[in-house]
């Protein structure tokens, strides 16, 4: 029983991380109609920044992580997204594939294929016992941070002018521009917020997910793929549905890896068939609800993706 609760809490934390990534990807998709496949490499760059400054004070290390991720986000916007503003969504998607592999290979050449340990705040990995259930501090922190980010983002989107302009641009960017909304300012803001979220994930992920303690060139790639699938499954057209999609994928991965039998010999270990089980669920959902799991009514999401 207590083990079940532990698995469940861990799955919610994983869902929170995936939901954060989904928001980061969904924000940029909203204003640019661009699926950023290179989002994971922002997280990778942030994790390298942390790993290379393990011996520095933790706040400095985290500040460097944010600096690197934000600089890289802006570099992507100015060097790739902006010149491709009028390109087709397919062209932009392929461009982000190219960016993703470029960054992976730069990391490979510069840092090698062997992973580097990321140490952020070791204390957070210690467990706390609540009613007989052992939960690591980082699990609680992850969930709280995700809630705080979503609350802050909701305030930004609903209470500020730039937030209103971002919502308008994601509904109908041409009309927004005709009203005087500065497209580039809105897009740059979305890219920056998306970068801040990537940096937050870069700080949390190495502590929260044991397999992500080591940063290597393909760091966060698997997460990105699963989150992208989650975003589509949830409904990419709306930030909320995309976020719920990301959360659901994290929750599903967490629960399946916790509850599927993981002992025994190949192929009866969950690490072998976990992805297979997850994507089978995805196929079933897409067959039953191609417009998105959380989309009310039939919207045009299918055509857009």
């Amino acid at each position, binding site marked *: 029983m207590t083990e079940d609760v532990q698995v469940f809490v861990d799955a919610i934390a994983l869902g929170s991380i995936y939901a954060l990534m989904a928001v980061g990807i969904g924000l940029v998709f909203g204003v640019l109609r661009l699926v950023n496949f290179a989002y994971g490499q922002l997280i990778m760059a942030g994790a390298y920044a942390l790993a290379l400054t393990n011996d520095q004070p933790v706040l400095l290390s985290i500040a460097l992580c944010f600096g690197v991720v934000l600089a890289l986000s802006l570099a992507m916007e100015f060097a790739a997204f902006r010149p491709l503003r009028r390109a087709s969504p397919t062209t932009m998607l392929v461009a982000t594939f190219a960016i993703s592999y470029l960054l992976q290979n730069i990391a490979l050449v510069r840092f090698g294929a062997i992973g580097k340990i990321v140490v952020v705040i070791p204390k957070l990995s210690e467990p706390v016992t609540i009613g007989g259930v052992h939960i690591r501090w980082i699990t609680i922190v992850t969930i709280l941070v995700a809630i705080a980010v979503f609350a802050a983002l909701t305030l930004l989107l609903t209470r500020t002018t730039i937030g209103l302009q971002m919502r308008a641009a994601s509904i109908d960017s041409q009309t927004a521009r005709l*009203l*005087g909304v500065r497209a580039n300012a809105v897009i740059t803001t979305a890219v920056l917020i998306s970068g801040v979220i990537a940096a937050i994930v870069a700080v949390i992920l190495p502590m929260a997910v044991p397999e992500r303690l080591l940063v290597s060139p393909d760091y966060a790639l698997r997460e990105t793929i699963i989150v992208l699938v989650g975003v589509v499954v949830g409904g990419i057209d709306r930030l909320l549905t995309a976020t719920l999609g990301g959360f659901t994928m994290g929750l599903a991965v967490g629960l399946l890896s916790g509850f599927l039998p993981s002992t025994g010999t190949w192929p009866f270990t969950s690490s072998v068939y976990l992805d297979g089980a997850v994507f089978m669920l995805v196929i079933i959902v897409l067959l039953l609800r191609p417009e998105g799991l959380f989309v009310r009514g039939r919207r045009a999401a299918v055509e857009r993706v």
Partner: protein
Amino acid sequence: MLELSGLEVRYGTVPAVRGLDLSVGRGEIVGLIGPNGAGKSTTLHAIMGAVRPSAGDIRLSGSSIRGRPPEQVVRAGIALVPEGRRIFSELTVEENLRLGLSGRRSKVGAAEAVERVCELFPVVRESRRRQAGLLSGGQQQQLAIGRALVAEPDVLLLDEPSLGLAPTVVNAVFEALEAIRTRGVTILLVEQRAQRTVAVADRTYVISNGELRMTLGPEDAGDTSRMVEAYFGGS
């Protein structure tokens, strides 16, 4: 105030507007009519910078605005009420108005500008917190015009504001145009309702196939044969 000279717009190799000359004087209401596909909306989009002209010039108060992006054209003093209203139906009426404020040249006086729009269209004030998509077609049109007016433009472009509206509502829209003019806003009106447009406008240009066919004055409003000739071409 607003002058187009030799304006040409192409979609790929297809010409949509060919060598159009048109001028709108300060405080005037100028109509632009013609059959479907004549190039009316394209002309407005070219003025707004939403499509790029292949030749010709667009001048506002003497200085060229050709090639500027829409967000700069709005700040230069031209606002568009787009065809089909293009209201953000998921946002509230107030949020739609606030988006219109994005195009203001100065932040000073924004509250007064909203207040003046509310005086002109009381429904906007009454339904500020409602979702814009829940308004009737006529109310949405008033909101669309109000949203353009809060930017306090010198020139207001309207793209078929009466489209899809009930006759009584159409009357209200045309009456609103007169009221807007008295506030010192210059109007360029694209319409399908030729007779109404010719009657309300100081001057109405008839275009067809992207070319200027004739210019009509208010006195031609009752002259059906001239109107028919304008549309279908005569000798």
